[in-house]
């Protein structure tokens, strides 16, 4: 009986096991091995020791493309994650109000999330067009300076050149990408709304008896009760923004345009592997990315004790 249960159990998970070995475990080991090799697909991988990693360190030291990609990735991840937390909480709190037509507002705010990334990228390329775009037209109506968006290197170019190339031009290509990611905040809204509705009413009643106004209720009841979701939002947002590829590839002409301002780690890695056919160097980069993401995630988990309410 037990032996047959074991056999059936292993047989049932075998599709995953085969896929795991062939499509994950072997590639995982191979990319680690190749990160110590020179490999261009045409000839056999040749062991070069730490050369690829030394090259990465060299680029980091003198501000080469790898340093640039690292800075761009950090900028994009930090800006989009931070703003998504702020926007997520603000919007969800508003959508939680008991007003008529609430379901209607919620549906419409979620709608942009179902737009496929390719379509969204095409759309935002035009919305943020410096000459014909809707957003710059809107800014000009408000007497604000037009922004360069996807046609200008933005604030955190390498080396940093903030504030902008000329007066009032603050927002560039990475900010356009951040804006695009914020437009798809709908998924987060659903999670924040669920968390908001789980907050016990009694907490607010108690706060009110203690004389806390709406603002203090938000800071002392709502926000602490939302911290587990904020934590989830930050961890997942970070992992996703580091791995983001499609929209970045599309708005940057597939090469990090303009002037490398949208060359993120994931794009740089892709181009190194499939345009330069430098598989060894790309693998080393992938491993640095992997270690960095793991370290940051571990750090987030460690610090979460101090600010996540359980």
């Amino acid at each position, binding site marked *: 009986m037990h032996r047959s249960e074991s056999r059936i159990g292993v047989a049932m998970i075998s599709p*995953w096991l085969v*896929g*795991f070995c062939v499509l994950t475990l072997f*590639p995982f080991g191979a990319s680690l091995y190749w990160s110590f090799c020179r490999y261009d697909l045409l000839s056999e991988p040749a062991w070069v020791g730490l050369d690829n990693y030394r090259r990465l360190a060299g680029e980091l030291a003198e501000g080469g493309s790898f340093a640039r990609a690292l800075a761009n990735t950090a900028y994009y991840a930090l800006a989009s994650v931070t703003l998504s937390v702020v926007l997520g909480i603000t919007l969800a709190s508003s959508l939680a*109000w008991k*007003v008529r037509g609430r379901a209607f507002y919620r549906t419409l705010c979620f*709608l942009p999330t179902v737009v*496929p990334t390719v379509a969204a990228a*095409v759309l935002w390329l035009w919305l943020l067009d410096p000459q014909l775009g809707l957003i710059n037209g809107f800014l000009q109506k408000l007497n604000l300076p037009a922004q360069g968006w996807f046609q200008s290197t933005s604030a955190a170019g390498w080396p940093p050149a903030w504030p902008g190339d000329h007066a009032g031009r603050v927002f560039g290509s990475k900010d356009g990408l951040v804006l695009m990611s914020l437009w798809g905040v709908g998924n987060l809204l659903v999670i924040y709304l669920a968390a908001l509705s789980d907050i016990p009413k009694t907490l607010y009643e108690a706060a009110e008896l203690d004389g806390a106004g709406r603002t203090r209720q938000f800071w002392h009841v709502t926000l602490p009760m939302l911290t587990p979701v904020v934590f989830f939002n930050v961890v997942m947002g970070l992992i996703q923004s580091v791995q983001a590829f499609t929209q970045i590839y599309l708005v940057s002409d597939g090469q990090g345009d303009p002037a490398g301002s949208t060359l993120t780690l994931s794009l740089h890695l892709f181009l190194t592997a499939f345009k330069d056919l430098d598989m060894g160097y790309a693998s080393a980069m992938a491993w640095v990315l992997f270690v960095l993401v793991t370290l940051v995630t571990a750090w987030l988990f460690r610090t979460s004790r101090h600010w996540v309410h359980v």
Partner: protein
Amino acid sequence: MNADRTPRWAHFWLAMVTILMVSPLAWMVLTSLKGPDQLAAAPYSWWPSPWRWQNYADAVATIPFLRYLLNSILLCLGSVAGTLLSCSVVAYGFSRLRWPGRDLLFGALIATMLLPWQVTMVPRFLVIRELGLYDSLWALVLPKFFAEAFYVFLLRQFFLTVPQEMIDAARVDGCSELGVLWRVMLPLARPALATVALLETIAAWNDYGGPLLYLNDPERFPLAYGLEQFVSAHSSQMHLLMAAAVLFTLPMVLLFVLAQRVFVRGIATTGLKG
């Protein structure tokens, strides 16, 4: 005492926010109906005049739209079939059967979810190429038959909630394990299966990186990739581009309207779109 904390300006604020969120979509639809002379006309007008439905016919005619659409549909169907088939069997093996090493392997499965795709990208590409799948839709569909970790996790969570008595009763009645899965678990797990199917449909429809890596022959491009080709070829024809983008987005909006509850449940249980 103010029972609910709704301010008086709630409607004004919500309407403003909603308009901001929806206006890009409205702009996309309205632009797709404008004539080329209207695109850069000053002063700017939101409304097309006249409404050029012709743009849609033109956009479809400019790219092999039906070919791309067919590829996209094949991709979605194949991916969903592979995912449902493999993930439900694997999830059952990980949840309702006891065998040595199960929890260790399940830990490995969870770990793969945290692995950035870039780490395995290069060798995986070579494996797929060695299997002779390069430049075939199978390069994108076949991996789905090997059970994606995230969906296995989701279905397993659901399977664990089914009472043991129901499984035992079926076994006593002479059901094999596959029979238990088919007759007991899957009918109960319909909501979870719907969520998985929905998430995978969206993922397959939207996938751009996969075709970019594995496809070369335009005959095999799905819409997501074909649309981009259109962008590079006709970047000045914004109205046609928006028409194509609307056509590409429309099925997802319809899916959302029809299955809104599945959508919201999917996100609430998983926290992600996919």
